[in-house]
């Protein structure tokens, strides 16, 4: 897409092994990333079929400007979510965007189900469906080891290759199975792992060694350096490198917005034991970066695990973030950094989404205590603060050991519909909640957001602003921010760099690599993309006005006090009217 007038899309049919490449001029109107992925999802999905039907597509897309400017590091995946039955959208960093760019593809569309367990190997001059029978059943880590050895490209640095893979959870169809990207990043949310599993697709290896000429190098390099400087010499991203996202634990805890013990409370008495500083002091061993990022916010923590009697130890390394500490820490009442790392490690190896896993186990703990389920269901004791049971439960969840775990593996909403306890099953429109109980912004923002994530429109930010609550203003802010993020996610930037890439910077950057865009174009692109996503959701049967939020959101005080269900529903209605208007617009 750099200095070209088309988007290059690779289509792979896993059933026949056939491939084709399309050069799509029409997709330029969607810029890149989430824009082109939405359009390709809409064109290739079949709303009549279930999400795991072989016909349903997985779309990966990189952004306009991916990798050639700092922090434009992410790849977007779009699919129909097996968790919610509607729009699936997830982002991951590491090396994938760089590898796709260097391989020569802006987007990759995978359909069909392979006849046997397979993985897909994509490189600049070759695409093949390869035998994965020997690695099927291996965990995420083992799969990574094996494929790194197998997917060698002679004489070239492994730095140009990305490997994404699923674990047993994806193979077993857990609705919130994730896809691991290059060990430390993930397409975490909404169950892409299960969709890959349903296609008999264990992994995708992407390798690229193209060289891409930059036509006006002088101009490009000037803009590059300006952005680079903003990343490295200002305060704008410093905190992400320093303590990283776990820095959020203490302020959220103090504000009462940190969901604790299945959100029975909004703060955790042991927060300081598991905050960013505690992880740094006890476990941090290094920091890493996605390729193309000069910041490096990926914090790797280590702990020494005794795996057998007789002084048998091993070192466990995982990346830790705020969301993981919330989901597998405060939400389960776990107060030790080592134990949280142990839980993250099991989740990683199984290939589960950490947030959904933690929220499901939080509900199960409450449901067990309140008699909705018994230990005959859970097979282990689950108690807030006691991590041993959770380690075993995570494995059962991944393996689908019994009917209870198979139901829980379809998400907390589904499990509560079977066993009861819906009032404290902490999901928003079927997606397990994120770690922010800050107010109407976070709650309604997730309810109306296209993928029901806190990142759709950053509603938690509006809860923290010092202006007083105004329903219409909040709805406008959520709507406008969602549109803006559709545009920025078509670049696809790491959201930590939002403030670095203001609109003038975006225009300057893209216009040095072949685009000629105006500010109005960016607005139109954002609106076009959100409209497309809303139309996909509509086609899949989603109705904003029908969202019913669990009672506990209105019982446990948020950072801004107790929320009112009627007010939340009114805000959802108002947003929904704006969404309807946008869908009816001819763009």
């Amino acid at each position, binding site marked *: 897409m750099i200095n070209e007038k088309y988007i290059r899309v690779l289509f792979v049919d896993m059933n026949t092994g056939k491939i084709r490449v399309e050069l799509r001029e029409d997709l330029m109107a969607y810029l890149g990333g989430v824009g082109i992925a939405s359009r390709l999802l809409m064109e290739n999905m079949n709303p009549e079929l279930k999400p795991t039907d072989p016909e349903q597509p997985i779309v990966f897309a990189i952004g306009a400007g991916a990798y050639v400017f700092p922090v434009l590091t992410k790849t977007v995946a779009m699919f129909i979510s097996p968790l919610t039955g509607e729009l699936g959208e997830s982002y991951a960093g590491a090396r994938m965007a760089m590898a796709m760019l260097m391989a020569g593809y802006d987007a990759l569309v995978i359909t069909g189900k392979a006849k046997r367990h397979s993985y897909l190997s994509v490189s600049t001059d070759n695409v093949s469906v390869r035998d994965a029978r020997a690695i099927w059943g291996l965990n995420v880590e083992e799969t990574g080891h094996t494929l790194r050895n197998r997917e060698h490209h002679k004489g070239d640095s492994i730095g140009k290759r990305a490997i994404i893979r699923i674990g047993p959870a994806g193979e077993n169809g857990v609705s919130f199975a994730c896809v691991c990207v290059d060990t430390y990043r993930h397409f975490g949310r909404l169950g892409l792992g299960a969709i890959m599993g349903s296609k008999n697709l264990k992994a995708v290896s992407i390798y690229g060694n193209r060289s891409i000429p930059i036509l006006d190098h002088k101009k490009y390099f000037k803009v590059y350096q300006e952005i680079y400087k903003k990343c490295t010499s200002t*305060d704008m991203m410093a*905190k*992400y490198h320093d303590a990283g*996202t776990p*820095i*959020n634990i*203490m*302020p*959220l805890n*103090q*504000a*009462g*917005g940190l969901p604790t013990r299945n959100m029975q409370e909004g703060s955790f008495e042991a927060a300081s034991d598991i905050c960013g500083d505690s992880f740094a002091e006890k476990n941090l061993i290094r920091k890493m970066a996605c390729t193309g990022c000069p910041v490096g916010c990926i914090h790797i923590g280590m702990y020494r695990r005794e795996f057998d009697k007789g002084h048998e130890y091993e070192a466990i390394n995982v990346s830790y973030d*705020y*969301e993981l500490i919330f989901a597998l820490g405060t939400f389960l009442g776990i107060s030790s950094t080592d134990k949280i790392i142990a839980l993250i490690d099991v989740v990683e190896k199984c290939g589960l989404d950490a947030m959904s896993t933690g929220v499901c186990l939080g509900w199960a703990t409450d449901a067990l205590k309140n008699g909705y389920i018994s230990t005959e269901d859970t097979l282990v004791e689950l108690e807030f603060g006691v991590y041993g049971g959770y380690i075993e439960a995570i494995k059962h969840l991944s393996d689908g050991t019994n009917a209870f775990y198979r139901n829980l593996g379809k998400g907390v909403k589904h499990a509560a519909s079977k066993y009861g306890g819906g009032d404290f099953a902490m999901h928003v429109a079927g997606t397990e909640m*994120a770690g*922010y109980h*800050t*107010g109407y912004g976070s709650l309604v923002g997730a309810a109306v957001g296209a993928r029901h994530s*806190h*990142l759709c429109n*950053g509603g*938690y*930010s509006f*809860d*923290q*602003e*010092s*202006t*007083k*609550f105004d329903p219409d203003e909040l709805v406008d802010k959520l709507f406008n921010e969602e549109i803006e993020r559709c545009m920025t996610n078509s670049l696809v930037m*790491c*959201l*930590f760099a*939002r403030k670095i890439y203001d609109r003038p910077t975006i225009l300057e950057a893209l216009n040095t690599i072949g685009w000629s865009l105006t500010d109005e174009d960016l607005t139109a692109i954002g609106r076009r993309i959100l409209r497309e996503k809303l139309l996909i959701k509509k086609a899949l049967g989603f109705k904003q006005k029908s969202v019913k939020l669990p009672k506990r959101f209105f019982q446990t005080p*948020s*950072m*801004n*006090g107790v929320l009112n269900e009627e007010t939340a529903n009114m805000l959802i209605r108002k947003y929904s009217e704006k969404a309807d208007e946008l869908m009816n617009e001819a763009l």
Partner: protein
Amino acid sequence: MTVNFYGNIKKHTNGEGTYVPVNKTHSTLRDVLDELNVHFGDSFASFISDNEACLFLVNGKGIKHTGGLDTPVCNGDIINILPFVEAG
């Protein structure tokens, strides 16, 4: 009344973690911040005026539903100014 500072805002308070307002008759959070702006100067004032820089808590609660900066305050109140929570 006590104002506590946490995280990066301390760069703008000469490292001070606490301030007790001199004027005891402040009636809103805005009045307190006006005194802080005068006391700590321009860099503090411009930092807290950024809508996405700090999170204000009065007696441990957010201020969205108590009037924003017009939230009433009185003697004995604890005002905490924390780093803004961001995610990505």
